[in-house]
């Protein structure tokens, strides 16, 4: 009797052994989706700010940001345009680290990118090792087209929530829809519940 050997136990996982969220297909490349021009922010001018809508709570320039404790992590990415990329390895700073000294009773985060992109999500989805500001991908500097020099990564939600070229996080008491959430896309965007569009 022939032994059945799953190729999935070594190397990159294949579609045959990996359960994808409903409606997704596996890709091994990394498609680029952009709703506008790619910002090219010199590192000398780069800033990341956390505010509450009126006052700045924390602010980092590139040097102080890169001086924060960082982590290497491997996650699966699921884009609402139906591709999934598995086992992507990143390096970045956990939002737990960035928010550690922020005292807030806000429930939501509104994320701004360089350029005009925005997205919204519950603050709790940024905490407990579920979100990072990533600056390296696959062993190299994060390319501009993938959000470099630094992007948000919230891999448990559809990838449009992982704002490229992140610039500012505003902590709020009221949930305000972002660039796509205000025009038909789901406010939360859980790929495992296939929350692509309004009402799903």
């Amino acid at each position: 009797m022939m032994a059945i050997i799953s190729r999935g136990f070594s190397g990159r996982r294949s579609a045959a052994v990996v359960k994808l969220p409903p409606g997704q297909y596996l890709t091994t490349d990394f498609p680029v989706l952009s709703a506008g021009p790619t910002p090219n922010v010199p590192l000398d001018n780069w800033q990341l700010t956390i505010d509450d809508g009126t006052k700045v709570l924390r602010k980092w320039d590139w040097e102080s940001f890169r001086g924060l404790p960082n982590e290497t992590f491997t996650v699966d990415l699921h884009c609402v345009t139906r591709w999934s990329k598995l086992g992507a390895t990143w390096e970045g700073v956990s939002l737990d680290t960035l928010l550690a000294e922020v005292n807030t009773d806000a429930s939501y985060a509104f994320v701004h990118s360089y350029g005009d992109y925005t997205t919204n999500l519950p603050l709790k989805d940024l905490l407990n090792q579920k979100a990072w500001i990533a600056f390296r991908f696959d062993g190299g500097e994060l390319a501009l087209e993938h959000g470099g020099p630094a992007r948000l990564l919230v891999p448990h939600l559809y990838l449009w929530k992982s704002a490229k070229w992140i610039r500012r996080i505003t902590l709020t008491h009221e949930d305000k829809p972002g660039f796509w959430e205000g025009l038909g896309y789901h406010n939360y965007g859980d790929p495992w519940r296939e929350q692509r569009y309004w009402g799903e």
Partner: protein
Amino acid sequence: MSSDNDYLDGNAAAGELSSIFATDITAAEGQCANCGATKRFAEAHVYMQTPGVVARCAACEHVLLRVVNVRHRIFLDVRGMTFLSFDTSQDRRTVQAAS
């Protein structure tokens, strides 16, 4: 502060927009609500590799129009334009010629 971009001209959005507008929007003139530039829609910078279609002003890159086609519903955002002006003279000539 931006690099080279993967945009197309406004004609690329013609197919998507033909399901909304009765006339060809690419020949229409639109005024950007941000910088005031008035240009033919065909000159807009259109980004198609996104969860929707985004048309931006060729002068200032402000969003002019967004379209999202989700299942059985189309969402249209035209807040980025002060107006869209359609030239109907050709339509009238066509109607007169046909009558």
